[in-house]
């Protein structure tokens, strides 16, 4: 009797697995008609019909992480909505498996393969050399001090893509918001996609507030929102009155802490006003949807550029959310100062950001 039940359960499980496999993405391309492409044609020249291009995003985490991976998912979704292509992505890829994922899509002659994260640098470089027919975009984090440039290799079909100087913009706003002259920015972990922001905070704050004490440190987690909240509370209780964080879902805990204590916060990576409407004044976002649309069109039009493809504040690499009514709630001089500094940064009037 019990054996029967066990067998029955096993059979059910197998059926379940088959059913799920059957539902797997059907937009896999038809491999039977390989396209003839000569090597060397990749670098410019050939024009493509955007609606016929094949794009895939290869992600290290899940598309609902409120951060790094979600913004990439939104980039391919944006392309899908605008150009009628399929929004293809793969989640939770380990560093050791990335090369095989890339190979799969490169063999299928994908036009644009987004490898989302600098931890995949070695795989992307290896595969870009092997498959000159595909364009590879490695999403990268660039430090403000330009020390990243040494890491970039010259491969004609590989671009290191990312915004730069976001931290400067965030810091500049934080410097204006603070009343106590104490601001804190918490990163999740010491990885390029986070240190690029952390590296700019001090410089940004000094643009608007020379007296403010700036603290930047790391939480050591990207998922533990509860822990992040307690850490943020500890900072706030020590007198810090503006807080922002870049730690995927964990950063939501910091915003929650700001709301609980009634201090200002800045959202990051998405419009996070809704998480803590009484704390989140503005949100600053990596403008990857616009960046990858730009890169996508450059492939279509044959104006592709390899190497470091950096989007500064001037190039619209970073976007800022709506005020959501905070422009009425804040003192007018702060609103004006923030609007002013954002404008100046975008125009490049405060230096080359």
């Amino acid at each position, binding site marked *: 009797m019990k054996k029967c*039940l066990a067998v029955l359960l096993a059979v059910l499980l197998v059926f379940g697995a088959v059913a799920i496999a059957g539902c797997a993405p059907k937009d896999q391309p038809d491999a039977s008609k390989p396209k003839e492409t000569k090597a060397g044609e990749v670098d410019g020249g050939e024009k493509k019909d955007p609606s016929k291009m094949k794009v895939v995003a290869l992600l290290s985490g899940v*598309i609902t*992480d*409120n951060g790094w991976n979600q913004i990439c998912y939104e980039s391919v979704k944006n392309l899908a909505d605008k150009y009628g292509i399929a929004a293809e992505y793969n989640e939770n890829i380990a560093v050791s498996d990335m090369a095989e994922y890339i190979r799969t899509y490169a063999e299928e002659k994908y036009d644009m393969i987004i490898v989302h994260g600098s931890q995949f640098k070695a795989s992307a470089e290896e595969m870009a050399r092997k498959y000159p027919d595909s364009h590879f975009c490695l999403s990268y984090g660039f430090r403000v001090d330009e020390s990243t440039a040494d890491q970039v290799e010259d491969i004609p079909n590989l671009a290191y893509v990312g915004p730069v100087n976001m931290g400067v913009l965030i810091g500049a706003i934080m410097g204006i918001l603070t009343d106590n002259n104490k601001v804190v920015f918490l990163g999740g972990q010491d990885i390029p996609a986070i240190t690029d922001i952390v590296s700019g905070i001090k410089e940004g704050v000094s643009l608007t507030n020379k007296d403010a004490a700036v603290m930047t440190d790391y939480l050591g987690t990207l998922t533990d929102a*509860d*822990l992040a909240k307690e850490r943020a509370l500890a900072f706030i209780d020590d007198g810090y009155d503006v807080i922002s964080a870049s730690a995927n*879902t964990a950063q939501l805990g910091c915003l929650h802490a700001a709301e609980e204590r009634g201090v200002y916060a800045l959202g990051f990576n*998405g419009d996070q006003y809704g998480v803590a409407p009484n704390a989140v004044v503005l949100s600053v976002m990596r403008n990857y949807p616009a960046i990858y649309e730009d890169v996508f069109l450059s492939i279509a039009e044959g104006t592709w550029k390899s190497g470091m493809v950096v989007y500064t504040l001037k190039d619209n690499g970073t976007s800022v959310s709506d005020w959501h009514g905070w422009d009425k709630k804040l003192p007018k001089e702060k609103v004006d100062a923030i609007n002013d500094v954002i404008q100046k940064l975008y125009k490049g009037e405060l230096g080359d950001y």
Partner: protein
Amino acid sequence: MDLLQTIGGYLFTDIRMAAPVLLAGLGLLLMNWSGLLNIGAEGTMLIAALAAVAGSHYFGSVWMGLLLAMLAGAVFGLLFAVLTVTLRANQTVVGAAINILGLSLSTTLNRVLFGVETTVTKVDSFKVLEIPLLSKIPVIGQAFFAQMPIVYIAFLLVPVMHYFLFKTKPGLNLRSVGENPRVADTLGINVYRTQYLATIIGSMIIAAGGAFLSTGLLNFFTEDMVAGRGYIALAAVIFGKYKPAGIMIAAMIFMAGNVVSNVLQVAGVGIPYTFLTMIPYILTIVALTIFASRAVAPASLGKPYKRG
């Protein structure tokens, strides 16, 4: 006075953060004493954290959220019991499966219910319930008597559980099942029923811990938000020598480590954050070495029992 207040604040944070681990540990303890080794606390807490937010969202009350979370926990407990007690599958493997199931199911359901957004769905959450007079005691008053209801429940469960396990007949029956199910069976104790009950009720207590993470400390669910607390609880049970009070001390020592790393980071002493992250674990190991004496596990822990 100022220093004392600061210490009171640290204690407050410590107790609040220890509560979910304590609940999970107590739930696991109940199962362990019935002879079942369930490593699936992490998955159970995750699904409960989501269920709590869903319940609170759809019914508008955080208590309904807790109820739904405990129901979800009961279902996970039932699944574990069916597989390990009735079908006698390997308990460690099933526990691991529960963890994976909890992670993927909570992730999928979260996307189905609340969509793929960069913000989160906020819900009603537990409010602090100050106990009159007692909360006015200097230093410890706020820490012990100005917490959320579920924190009181967690800490009250410690003596209750101790009394049940070691002073009552059903508790003795439960422990005898964990020590030697065959003897218990010959004495007329229904081993399977005991194990089923222990697993289901234990999982519900674990689920309460998960619910506290999403609707107590915060008011939203994020994927993988339990972040290893289910495994910490597993260690806390062994560290606490299979005694409720021991688990409480273990949970509080571990979370005291987190408080220390918070304090050090805010003070800006320049210790790399990777070392700060280690503090809770180092503190636990040190405490374990100092206070170590052999933890005696229930004799039949993890061994499936076949009747007849």
